[in-house]
C-alpha cells in the first residue's frame, strides 16, 4: 500500500501549475467569456507543447504513455484555474478511446486538436464548434462524428466560457467510426470523463477556499478581519473538511481506472459525488463569506463558482453517482 504520487507525477503537476499560473490567470478565463471561441488558446498551445494532451496516449501516436494517475493531478490544476478548454473531453475521453482503436485522429488530438463529448448525462457538446471531433457515448453505441457533418445548435451556459452545443442524438449520425453494443467502452469513457470532471472540481474547490481565506483575512468589519469571526471560520472549516475527504476518493478512483480494478465504477462514482458536493459547498461558502463583492462579475469568484455549478451537474451529479453506488452495495 502506497497512496501517494511519484516525484515524476508531482513534477508534472507542478509544471502544469506553473504553466497555468502564467497562461491562465483569471483575466484569460474572463477573455474566454467574450472571445469567439470561448477558449484560452495560449494555455492550450502551451499544454499541447508540454505533451499533456497525450498523457493517456501511447508513444507511437506522440503520447506520453502514462496513466490516469498522472492525468488526475493535471486535471485538478486545470480546475484550479478554471481553464476554459475541453481538456477532459480531449485528454481523458477521446485520446485513449481513439488510440485504442488505432484511429488516426488520436495523433491529431495529441498534437493540439480538440474533442468534444456527449452522453445522456452530459448532453451538450462543450466547445464543439472548434473541435476536430465529437465523441458520442450513446447507450451501447460509441462513436465519433465530425462537428461539420452534424448540425450544432449553440445554447448558452451560465458559465460564459463554456460554449455549449446541442445535437440530436436520436437522429442517425454520420459516424466517422462507430462501435456498437460495446457497453464496456462507453462505461470506461464515461468513468474517465467523470473522474476528470471530479478532479477539476477539486481544483475549483481548493481555489475558492483559498480566495475566500485571503479575502476574509484582509476584509475588516467591526474593527477586525471578518475571518476572525467564528461563523466565518466554521463555514470555511466545513468547506475544507469536504475537500479533505473528497480528494483521496478522486485519486483512488484514478488508480482504479489505471489498473482496471473491478471496483472502478463504484470508486469513480464516490469520487464524482464527493467532489461535486465539495465544490458546491466551497462555492456556497465562498460567496457567503465574500458578501456582496462576490456577487459581482467584476470580482473573479463567479468565474470559478459558475464552473463548479456546471461541472457538478454534468457527467452525473452527486445524486446520480450515489445512486450508482447504492445499486452496487445494497
Amino acid at each position: 500500500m502506497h497512496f501517494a504520487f511519484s516525484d515524476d507525477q508531482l513534477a508534472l503537476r507542478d509544471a502544469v501549475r506553473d504553466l497555468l499560473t502564467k497562461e491562465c490567470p483569471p483575466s484569460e478565463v474572463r477573455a474566454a467569456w467574450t472571445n469567439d471561441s470561448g477558449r484560452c488558446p495560449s494555455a492550450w498551445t502551451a499544454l499541447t507543447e508540454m505533451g499533456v494532451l497525450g498523457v493517456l496516449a501511447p508513444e507511437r501516436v506522440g503520447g506520453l504513455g502514462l496513466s490516469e494517475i498522472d492525468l488526475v493531478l493535471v486535471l485538478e490544476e486545470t480546475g484550479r484555474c478554471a481553464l476554459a478548454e475541453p481538456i477532459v473531453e480531449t485528454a481523458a475521453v477521446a485520446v485513449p478511446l481513439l488510440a485504442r482503436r488505432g484511429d488516426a485522429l488520436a495523433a491529431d488530438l495529441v498534437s493540439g486538436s480538440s474533442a468534444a463529448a456527449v452522453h445522456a448525462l452530459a448532453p451538450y457538446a462543450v466547445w464543439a464548434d472548434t473541435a476536430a471531433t465529437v465523441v458520442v457515448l450513446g447507450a451501447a453505441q460509441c462513436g465519433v462524428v465530425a462537428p461539420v457533418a452534424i448540425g450544432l445548435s449553440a445554447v448558452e451556459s451560465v458559465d460564459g466560457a463554456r460554449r455549449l452545443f446541442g445535437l440530436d442524438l436520436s437522429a442517425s449520425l454520420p459516424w466517422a467510426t462507430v462501435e456498437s453494443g460495446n457497453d464496456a467502452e462507453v462505461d470506461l469513457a464515461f468513468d474517465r470523463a467523470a473522474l476528470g470532471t471530479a478532479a477539476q472540481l477539486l481544483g475549483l474547490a481548493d481555489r475558492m477556499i483559498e480566495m475566500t481565506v485571503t479575502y476574509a483575512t484582509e476584509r475588516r468589519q467591526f474593527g477586525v478581519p471578518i475571518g476572525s469571526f467564528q461563523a466565518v471560520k466554521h463555514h470555511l472549516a466545513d468547506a475544507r473538511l469536504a475537500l479533505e475527504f473528497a480528494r483521496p476518493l478522486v485519486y483512488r478512483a484514478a488508480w482504479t481506472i489505471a489498473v482496471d480494478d473491478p471496483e472502478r465504477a463504484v470508486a469513480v462514482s464516490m469520487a464524482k459525488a464527493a467532489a461535486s458536493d465539495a465544490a458546491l459547498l466551497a462555492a456556497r461558502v465562498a460567496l457567503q463569506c465574500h458578501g456582496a463583492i462576490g456577487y459581482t462579475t467584476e470580482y473573479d469568484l463567479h468565474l470559478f463558482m459558475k464552473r463548479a455549478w456546471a461541472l457538478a451537474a454534468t457527467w452525473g451529479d452527486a445524486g446520480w453517482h450515489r445512486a450508482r453506488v447504492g445499486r452496487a452495495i445494497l
Partner: protein
Amino acid sequence: MDLTFSDTEAAFRAECREWLEANVPHPALPSGDTAEGFARHREWERRLFDARWAVVSWPREYGGRDASLWEWLIFEEEYARAGAPQRVTQNGIFLLAPTIFEFGTAEQRDRILSKMASGEEAWCQGWSEPNAGSDLAGIQARAVRDDRAGGWRLQGQKTWTTRGAYCDRLFGLFRTDPEAPRHDGLTYLLVDLHAEGVVVRPVERLDGDEGFAEVFFDDAFVADADVLGNVGRGWNVAMATTGSERGLTLRAPGRFMAAADRLIDLARGVAADADADPLLRDRVTRAWIDAQAYRWQTFWTVTRLTAGERPGAESSLVKLFWSELDVRLHETALALLGPHAELVDAEFAAWMKGYEFSLSGPIYAGTNEIQRNVVAERVLGLPRK
C-alpha cells in the same frame, strides 16, 4: 381561531385575481435590472398604480386602498400566483415609505409618496459603502453643512445600490457629525441622483444584469427639505426601515408558495432518473412544506400585529427562514434539471436566474450570520460578550 378568509377578503382576492389575469403581460417582461427592462417595468408600475394595485395597504390619498394586512397578503399571493412582474419600485415602497409615514413631514409625504408608488420617481437605497457592509455603522460618506444654500453637501461613496443605474433618487445615511460616536452623527437624506456632483456607475451582478450601482458624491447638494427625521438621528430613523426590510414587508409568503407550486410543475414535467426521483420528490416536498410553514408563521405573526403588537427581533428568524428556503427551493429546481440547469437561454432558465438571485438573500439586509447573532442575543437572550 379562524383560519378562513372573510367574504370581503374573498371578494378582494377575486377582484385582484381578475385584474391580474387580464393585465399581467405575456410573455414576461425582460429583467427589470437592465435598462430596457426597467423602462418596461416602470410602465407596468404605472398600470398597477392607475388601477390602485401598486400600494394596496397605503391610504387612498397616496394611491392605495387602505387595505388591511390580510388583504395585502392576499394581494401578494395573487400577484405571485399570476406570475406578474418583479416590483422595481419595491425598495421605495417597502423600505423608504414606512419611514416617511413614520418620520416624514406632511410636505414630504405629499411630494414623494404618490410619485414613488406610480414609478414616476424610482428610488434606490444607499446604505452600504465599501467599508460599511455588515458593519453599517461604519458609514463614511459625509454631508457637510451649507448654511447659505440651506442644505448639505455630500462627499463619498455608496455601493450595492440595487438598480441604482436606473433610479431617480436615493435614500440613505450620511455622516453629518464626524466627531460623534459611530451610531450618532448620522442623518437620513433623500438625494436626487440626477443632481450635479452625483456619478452613478452600474455594476454587473452574478446573473449578468447591471443590477447594482456604485454612487459617487462630489459636493452634491441636498436641501433641508430632503432631510428625513432629525439631523444626527439617522441611525434610529433607518432602523425602522431595516426592520421592515428584514421582516414582513419584503417577503410576503405568496412568492414562495408560487415558487413551490412551480417547482411541483417542474418535478411533474421532468422525467427524472428513476433512482434519483424519490430523493428529488422529497426535496420538492420539503420546499413545499417550508413554503407552507412560512405562510402559517406569517399568518400567526400578522394576527398579533393586527392586535397591535410591534414586530421585534423575531423578524430575524423570518429573514433566516425565507432566505434559506429560497436557496433550497432553487437548488432543488436545478437538481431536477440536472445537466440542463446551466442553460440560461432555455425556457426553464428562470430557475438558474432565480437561483443566482436567491444567493443574495442570505447576504443582503444583514447577513444571515448577523441575523443568527440577533436571534441568539435578542430572542434567546444569550450574552453578547
